[in-house]
């Protein structure tokens, strides 16, 4: 039975780069996939593109491509990535430029677009899935709208002979499933295979999270050599069976436990994992260790796809101002609490206009609130005040009030920090499929 090997070279935009180089050099892989696009990233990229038409792709596209392009070309490894973000064509042109500077020729780079649906979203009001209300409520604060598209255009790009495929908002598992459909010729209504392909993508898309990253709990769940964590390789057979493994000698581990944590990561109803090409069903998935750092994943399936695609709508939500300051030694908690009370009173006195405020003592109860936090006195605490405002100028005032604790607050406050930032948030709507049309453009290098 035909088998292909897919390496997962990034689990998020800022991920380590050298594990991807290791995969390209030693992983004996056929494809190298980089998943780099979080929910909000594309909205920020869209803002960058509005300022500069040649920007809007992932800021780490250049170092990543520089690191792997020559090896991938020499070994015939195809690259698939969503590092195109809001501007796949500019990303493809940049990649061609990098190829040229490395002395590589005959490289075919595909820019896959069509996920940008901001015109359709602006045309008419669409209900917001999570918060209720409609896109009209977001008014002119909308900065981006991108549909989670499936594999169709990615497969088309691969079929046209592309060595590198650069897209924007595609469903993360689609980046991994496109090579499977291209190589194995799976039908787009073979729901069982597409369900299995989704499991493959889901297991690999967070890179190190299946090879021992984000797993260690010393004494309970130990992992060796996390500083040199190896990223995963998926060995996929034509029947959809997946074996997860990694480069021998790299750090981390692949076990049934690491695989199970990733299987359930960001999963809701296991029977209904909504994807653009299929509704995948993870409920009968089985995970089995078949050798050192080798785990077999079987039993995924799927059901017919839905009539709509999920769209992430990016919008300017608000501004957040923040300030922090530390206290240590005897009475640190009491002084930290006093600091928070002072800032609370100051924000009221100075009439800082906020729509939401939050007061935390880091080291005491910042993560889970007072009810779940232990009562014992820590050596040090950090007071943190954050507030939501309608303007940046108001947000600035929050951190300022924390900073003034230096000369006006409790004894021994140190390391004050402040920030104020614009918040671009996302909401989801469901869009009929006929509003979305994929595009493939080829750039030759």
């Amino acid at each position, binding site marked *: 039975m035909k088998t292909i090997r897919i390496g997962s070279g990034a689990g998020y935009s800022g991920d380590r780069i050298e594990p991807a180089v290791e995969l390209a050099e030693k992983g004996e892989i056929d494809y190298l996939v980089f998943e780099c696009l979080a929910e909000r990233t594309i909205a920020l990229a869209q803002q960058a593109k509005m300022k500069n038409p040649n920007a809007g792709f992932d800021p780490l596209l250049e170092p990543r491509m520089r690191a792997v392009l020559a090896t991938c070309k020499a070994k015939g490894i195809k690259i698939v990535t969503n590092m195109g973000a809001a501007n796949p064509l500019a990303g493809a042109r940049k990649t061609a430029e990098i190829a040229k500077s490395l002395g590589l020729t005959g490289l075919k780079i595909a820019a896959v677009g069509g996920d940008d649906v901001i015109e359709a979203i602006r045309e008419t009001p669409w209900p917001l899935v999570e918060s209720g209300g409609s896109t009209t409520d977001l008014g002119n604060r909308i900065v981006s709208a991108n549909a989670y598209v499936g594999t169709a255009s990615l497969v088309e790009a691969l079929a046209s002979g592309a060595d590198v495929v650069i897209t924007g908002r595609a469903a993360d598992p689609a980046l991994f499933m496109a090579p499977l459909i291209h190589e194995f010729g799976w039908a787009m209504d073979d729901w069982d295979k597409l369900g299995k392909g989704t499991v493959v993508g889901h297991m690999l898309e967070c890179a190190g999270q299946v090879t021992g990253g984000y797993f260690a709990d010393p004494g*309970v769940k130990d992992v060796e050599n996390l500083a040199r964590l190896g990223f995963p390789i998926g060995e996929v057979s034509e029947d959809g069976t997946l074996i997860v493994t990694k480069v021998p000698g790299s750090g981390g581990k692949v076990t049934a436990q690491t695989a199970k944590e990733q299987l*359930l990561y*960001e999963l809701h109803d*296991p029977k209904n994992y909504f994807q653009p090409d299929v509704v995948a069903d993870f*409920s009968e998935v089985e995970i089995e260790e078949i050798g050192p750092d080798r785990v077999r994943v079987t039993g995924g399936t799927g059901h017919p796809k839905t009539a709509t695609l999920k769209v992430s709508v990016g919008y300017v939500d*608000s501004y957040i101002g923040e300030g922090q300051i530390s206290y240590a030694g005897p009475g640190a908690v009491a002084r930290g609490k006093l600091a928070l009370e002072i800032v609370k009173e100051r924000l009221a006195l100075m009439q800082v206009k906020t729509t939401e405020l939050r007061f935390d003592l880091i080291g005491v109860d910042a993560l*889970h609130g007072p009810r779940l936090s232990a009562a014992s006195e820590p050596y040090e605490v950090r007071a943190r005040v954050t507030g939501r405002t309608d303007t940046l100028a108001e947000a600035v005032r929050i951190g300022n009030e924390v900073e003034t604790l230096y000369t006006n607050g409790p004894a021994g406050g140190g390391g004050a920090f402040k920030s104020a930032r614009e*918040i671009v*948030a996302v909401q989801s709507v469901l869009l009929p499929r006929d509003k979305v049309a994929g595009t493939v453009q080829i750039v030759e290098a």
Partner: protein
Amino acid sequence: MKLRALAHSRTGDKGNTSNISVIAFDPANYERLRREVTAERVKTYFAGIVKGDVVRYELPKVSALNFVMTETLGGGVTRSLALDMHGKSLSSALLDLDIPEGEE
């Protein structure tokens, strides 16, 4: 005893919804987890944090439970004021849950 002795866990996030897996180290303990770690208990445990519902899904083939908790992430990961905006540390809190001793 604590849940941490029987199970491991990871939190995921989508918008304002958090999901926490509870995976038995030993498949023999799966039924015990099913009995002890109910959606109601998780909802009570996270009172003040989970503002919405807790739904539990069962995955017996991998000896795991999946808790899906709505209205949990401060209005959504992308706009939350929380230090841990993704709620990633919630799994560690849940592993501190008390489980009655002495069975299986």
